[in-house]
């Protein structure tokens, strides 16, 4: 595509870098912004810039946060003895949206996959063990994708937790099988959180 302005072209190229956005829809977005007031567009760019520059990660659970602790960890209203372990923030949001989980989270930041160069040390596993070590946790729910990487990570964490007197469960695999967690609709996800299985029944 040929564009009449370098400024337009630069903006289009930036939009086209977003996942799922091709050149055509990038052009549509840019032309839309062009029609808007400069102050409106300023709001748009400021929001994105601030999001990127000022975002923090919760010291406790690694969730995105505006301050040192995320609003889930900071408010005292949630069950403090239950931790749901998720791969990423997307999955945390998916489970949060079911409104069927009232405990805390732990965001691993990925799954163990030597193929992608990700070993246990690249993930927030040690900090999870530290949380358990503090003694206030009684149940860990593994809500990881039902694939080899998810299973490997569950197995690995479970092994590290073997010496602690806590319950480790997993959300039922039949539901998430074949699809990644984020694609599972909220109803089925809610059901699977309620019907979680004890871990040892599925690893052997």
């Amino acid at each position, binding site marked *: 595509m040929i564009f009449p302005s370098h400024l337009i072209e630069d903006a289009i190229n930036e939009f086209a870098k977003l996942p799922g956005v091709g050149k055509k829809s990038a052009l549509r977005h840019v032309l839309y912004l062009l029609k808007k007031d400069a102050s409106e567009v300023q709001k748009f760019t400021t929001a994105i810039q601030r999001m990127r520059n000022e975002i923090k990660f919760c010291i406790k659970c690694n969730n995105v946060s505006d301050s040192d602790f995320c609003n889930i960890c900071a408010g005292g209203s949630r069950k403090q003895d239950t931790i749901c372990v998720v791969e990423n923030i997307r999955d945390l949001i998916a489970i949060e949206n079911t409104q069927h989980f009232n405990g805390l989270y732990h965001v691993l930041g990925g799954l163990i996959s030597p193929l992608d160069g990700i070993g*246990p040390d690249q993930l927030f596993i040690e900090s999870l063990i530290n949380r358990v070590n503090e003694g206030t946790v009684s149940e860990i729910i593994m809500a990881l994708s039902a694939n*080899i990487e998810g299973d490997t990570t569950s197995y*690995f964490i479970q092994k590290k937790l073997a010496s602690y007197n806590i319950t480790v469960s997993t959300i039922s695999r039949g539901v998430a099988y074949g699809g990644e967690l984020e694609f599972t609709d909220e109803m089925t996800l809610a059901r699977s959180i309620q019907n979680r299985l004890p871990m040892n029944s599925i690893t052997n």
Partner: protein
Amino acid sequence: MQQSFSFSKPINCIYGANGVGKTNILDAIYYLGFTKSYFAKKDSAVVMHNKQGMYIEGIFDWAEGQSSAIKIIIRENGKKELSENGEDIKQLQQHIGRIPCIMISPDDTVLITEGSEYRRKFIDGILCQIDTTYFSHLIAYNKVLAQRNALLKAWQEPNGQQWDLLAYYNQLLCQHAAYISPKRVAMLAQFIPMVCALYKEISKEPKEIIINLDSKLVNNNLEDLFKQTIQKDIATKRTSCGIHRDDLLLGMSPQESFKDFASQGQRKTLLFALKIAQYQYMKQQLGITPILLLDDVFEKLDANRSIHLLNLITQENCQTFITDTHLDRLEKAFAGWEEKVDFLEIGG
């Protein structure tokens, strides 16, 4: 560009000069069965140059008046969509085996002359179509194997964590191999005698050929093998034993392999014997008659063997598609079978 064809006879001869797209018709049928090309490694290669996507639809009329409309679309963004009678099919496991097809092409002699992976793929291709559980185990096994190999590649100053992961991958591989290996053994126990009998029938050679499964897993436990080979695996950074090392040994005699000792005609005969055995085995196991796709099979096969081969095929009650450059060769080959045969010219 769009074309449609209708085939209602058991035997469909497609003729025309080289490069007019005869093989494309066979490959389109194959694509509907397997959602991928037999010839092209990548989907991008099956979409016409300068075109944004591709669309194939095949309507298969089954017995008892039922029919399936299988549609495959490759979108502009490279995404592939598959549906049967308007219903989307998300998982390949649901579709593989639904439209069983067997392609025989001149390049297939790699099955005999090249490395073991071709023969494994051949055997797995048959088993995956008749047993979706096998297919799932095989996919999972290959994924775990890739992770195990990546772990070995990154192996340095091992700590406890790496050993833990290795042990876990071993355990998974053993689980999947425990399903796959016995299935291969059982399948080959039936399949190999079929191949040998067909070889005799096509070649009319009295000599017995010798085909055997070469697998360490037949007499060993994979867990034990992993224990024995761990130092070697770490040194070579790859997994030295498992179902991914199985091979099918093809011999003219105990000392003479087909690869090194057979003539071109003998190799071709073995290839046809393997493929027709695949046809017979799948028909028996699936209860559906597979479609035979024969691409340029008359090239480099002597007249006698061609006749024996065609006799075999015409006796089977299956739908067959044959491409050739010469109409007269096809007409001569099917003389006497006219009511069963249709001729279609491409690019004329």
